[in-house]
């Protein structure tokens, strides 16, 4: 057997799975997106009608805005919190391993469970948050956190950040572990204080960890579906209706397979563009430092 044939044989099983369950579906999604497919019968070609609808109805740009806003909040807060905690733990070896594991715990839980538990925490009457605020004399600020359009998206974002801050922290700590000890030592001998070491030595050297964290959380958050699905169903008044929630509702509530496919293609394009730009910018940033 020629070496080339053998290589192909090794790749074949994985190639088959990816072809049937990844490449072929993407092609089909693209095709459906130009049709009025409802899941049964033959799809009727309708040209750009689905895409036109996405642009011309305010509902869909609104969903896109919610998705982007949610992503910006989560990625910013999670990255900064993770960086802060990791930097703190780097300087406190006695509690480092314990805290890293403890903070990681929420990432072991499912969106379903996190959604239900936080939904109850935010509940207007017997929920934990309002009870806590009343107990410390802030009853003026209590509300139905998920029922108020001003707070619903932030409330869900907090639950999401709560889940993954430990993950971000662990990745930053792995970045810290890659910083050579003699560099830190040299900084210390030069009389650099804790803040100076962070700002001029550690932060530049952590650039690869920043790249990984920002890209992972961005890709993960742009497709947010479970938490709004469980906690608010997109309400109140569309304040938490994300793009992926819209896709699933179109698919299994109204059987608009063609239209859902067009939304999915929009999502794919956004994810690819954002990932490409971030990769270019963040990697470029790594080389400069």
């Amino acid at each position, binding site marked *: 057997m020629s070496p080339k044939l053998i290589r192909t044989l090794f*790749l074949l099983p*994985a190639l088959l799975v990816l072809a049937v369950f990844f490449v072929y579906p993407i092609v089909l999604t693209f095709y459906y997106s130009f049709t009025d497919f409802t899941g049964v019968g033959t799809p009727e070609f309708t040209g750009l009608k689905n895409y036109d609808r996405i642009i011309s109805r305010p509902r869909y740009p609104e969903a896109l805005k919610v998705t982007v806003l949610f992503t910006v909040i989560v990625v910013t807060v999670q990255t900064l919190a993770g960086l802060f905690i990791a930097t703190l733990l780097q300087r406190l070896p006695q509690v480092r391993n314990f805290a890293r594991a403890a903070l990681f*715990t929420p*990432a072991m839980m499912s969106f379903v469970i996190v959604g239900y*538990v936080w939904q109850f925490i935010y509940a207007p009457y*017997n929920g934990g948050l309002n009870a806590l605020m009343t107990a410390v004399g802030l009853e003026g600020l209590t509300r139905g956190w998920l029922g108020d359009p001003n707070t619903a998206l932030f409330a869900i974002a907090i639950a999401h950040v709560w889940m993954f801050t430990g993950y971000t922290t662990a990745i930053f700590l792995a970045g810290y572990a890659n910083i050579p000890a003699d560099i830190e030592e040299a900084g210390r001998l030069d009389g650099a204080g804790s803040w100076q070491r962070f700002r001029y030595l550690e932060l530049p050297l952590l650039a690869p960890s920043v790249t990984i964290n920002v890209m*992972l959380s961005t890709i993960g958050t742009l497709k947010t579906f479970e938490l709004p699905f469980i906690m608010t169903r997109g309400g109140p008044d569309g304040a938490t209706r994300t793009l992926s929630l819209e896709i699933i509702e179109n*698919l299994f509530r109204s059987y608009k397979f063609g239209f859902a496919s067009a939304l999915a293609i929009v999502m*794919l394009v956004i994810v690819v563009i954002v990932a490409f730009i971030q990769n270019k910018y963040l990697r470029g940033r790594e080389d400069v430092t």
Partner: protein
Amino acid sequence: MTQITRKLGTWLGNAFVILLVLVMLTPVIYMILMSLRTGEEIAQDPLGLPSGLFLGNYVNTLASMDYVRAVMNSVGITLSVTVIVALFGSMAAYPLARSTGRWGRAFIMLVALGLATPAFVTITPIYVIFRNLGLLDSYIGIILAFTALNLPLAVFFYVGFIGAIPGDLEEAARLDNCNDFQVFWYVIRPLLGPATATLSLFVMLMVWNDFTYPLLLLTDPDKFTVMIAVYRFVGNHNIEPDLLFPAAVLGSLPLLVIFLIFQRRIVSGVTAGAVK
């Protein structure tokens, strides 16, 4: 003087971190405490502690949710997916790790695209394909879907891992007249244990916690995974706390126990997987 300031700083820092950990774990503790109280107690005093070890909620929940069945389903699906993904992934990774031609690079690109593509992009056609093939509501269907979802990560994982195995071992085997398949099976495969262990953690986390795929592909309660069982159960009961919290605890318990035992391995494994 500086010695004292530094000690005080460390002490304050440690205290702050422990406080932070407590605050972050509050929702988990809240979930467990609430699961031990009756709905009436929660309504009267939302922040109160359980008055005793009241397990009535658990009895009620277990009586109406087919928990054991769902756990068996999740475990069985996890094991199947792990075996297939580990085999297919390591096979594909072997030639890719050893030499990359034009097609090899194209394959890696495809895998990278697979890693970044949200499941929502492929979910509609997968649903249609499964329906046409009669794979909806079947173990085989859900196993195939999760396999496809996890395979890109597995390939990446094994390419990095096999790339770090020195070539001398293979050369020696080749001199003994082993063909490529024998080299892979008898020389490479036995060395992949640690990589497979870490990979299986990823698969377990995803299969156990994923919601979207089983929500769309499974409607037969006998085949529900744990999360879908919890969702159907709680959804049917209008968020009553005395059913919600025990179901939430039962749904997370197996993974939390596993995490408690293997925490170091899981944190470093998941982190290393992300960094690669």
